[in-house]
């Protein structure tokens, strides 16, 4: 029997080792698996490489992880969200390495990691400072940048509902990076608002099939503010 449910957040993140690469979904706080990241903070792993769109806001989730000095490097597109003081302080103090990637290239590199595509050529960033040091090649007379796949040791994602096989359904714009990151890690851990019966999700409406998901942990949504 396939049952990917785990009993606690602590159990869900227990085996993240120092030095791991962790893909963290979300666009700002929407779709962010903030409780998983908080559990990782409590677990204590250090020297992490984080792949995310942002670099945390306020003092929770990614921001706390960065503020506590656990993150060696962040690969992201937009570290400047509302109140990014944890990242800002670490960045200004030279305590965190930043690899800045255009958002679409970031998403595509993660997808490539999940899809068995080792590298690809894109026009995005050609001729800019971001392409410095990267291979550039002409196709149809236009410069293209070679970009390589990204994979995680772990992916932390967040969904609205799941069945015990790990089939996931998202709500509205909380989908964002979740289906992409779910594909691209050795271990994908999903925090979900609720568990539904196996077979209750129409196969045509599954957003992330369970084949991509290793662990599911329930974190009820807080009441809407």
């Amino acid at each position, binding site marked *: 029997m396939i049952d990917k449910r785990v009993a606690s957040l602590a159990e869900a993140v227990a085996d993240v080792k120092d030095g791991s690469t962790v893909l963290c979904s979300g*666009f*700002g706080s*929407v*779709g962010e698996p903030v409780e998983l990241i908080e559990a990782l903070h409590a677990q204590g792993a250090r020297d992490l490489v984080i792949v995310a*769109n942002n*670099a945390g806001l306020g003092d929770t989730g990614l921001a706390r992880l960065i503020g506590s000095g656990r993150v060696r490097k962040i690969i992201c*597109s*937009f*570290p*400047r*969200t*509302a109140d*990014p003081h944890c*990242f*800002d302080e670490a*960045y*200004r103090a030279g305590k965190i390495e*930043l690899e*800045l*990637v*255009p*958002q*679409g*290239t970031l*998403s*595509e590199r*993660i*997808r490539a990691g999940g899809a068995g595509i080792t590298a690809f050529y*894109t*026009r*995005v*960033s*050609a*001729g*800019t*400072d*971001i392409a410095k040091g990267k291979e550039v090649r002409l196709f149809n007379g236009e410069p293209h940048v070679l970009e390589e796949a990204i994979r995680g040791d772990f992916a932390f994602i967040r969904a609205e509902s799941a069945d015990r096989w790990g089939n996931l359904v*998202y*709500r*509205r*714009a*909380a*989908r*964002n*990076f*979740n*289906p*992409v990151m779910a594909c691209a890690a050795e271990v994908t851990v999903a925090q979900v608002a609720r568990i539904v019966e196996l077979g209750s999700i129409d196969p045509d409406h599954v*957003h992330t099939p369970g084949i991509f998901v290793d662990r599911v942990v329930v974190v009820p949504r807080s009441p*809407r*503010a």
Partner: protein
Amino acid sequence: MTPLSRRQIAWRAAQDLPDGAYVNLGIGLPTLVSDYIPEGREVVFHSENGVLGLGPAPAPGEEDPDLINAGRGLVTIVPGGAIVHHNDAFLIIRGGHLDYSLLGAFQVSAAGDLANWATDDPTFPPGLGGAMDLAVGAKEVRVLIEHTTKDGRPRLVARCTYPLTAARCVKRIYTNLAVLDVTEAGFVVREMVAGLDAPALQRLTDAPLAFAPDCGVLKAPPLGERARG
């Protein structure tokens, strides 16, 4: 001479979007554009975080915390809207599926070069977001921008001094003072606000300006800050 307000710049840009257009709205000024589409037109707004059919800000009490735009502002989704994941949101952008990308900017050059992701302040962490993807991928890139910085320096320049987002990508610019096209010959002014003359606009611009023969008056109706904005 009365410069346009930020909302009036957004209003002006909205008037040029044709019925049926698919349009991405970048962070900042552009996100205001969706409030001002003329009656009777259907324009589909795309947001890099996976929303197609972005609607106006929600009425009080109808906020959905899972529905935000690229600037993390709460939005609605219109009938006919669709949600896609991030990778498909950027497949749409990079694959040339958007008719227009409306972007903010720090600087635009007379060649259409765009600089909107980093300044020359090394202590200010830069932020790319989807700007490079949008600048390269959309069929047409338009910029909404204040004509000068707060301390009066031109943002429309002969050459960008800030790092480029993409070269030769901007086709039209809406400022608080003028509407300009970027042509092979550089900036061409299509409209400017009443009370401004060509020499005055030129003094606020760091690249030679040409003026369209039919150069018109840039005007917009009075627009209050919307209660729901």
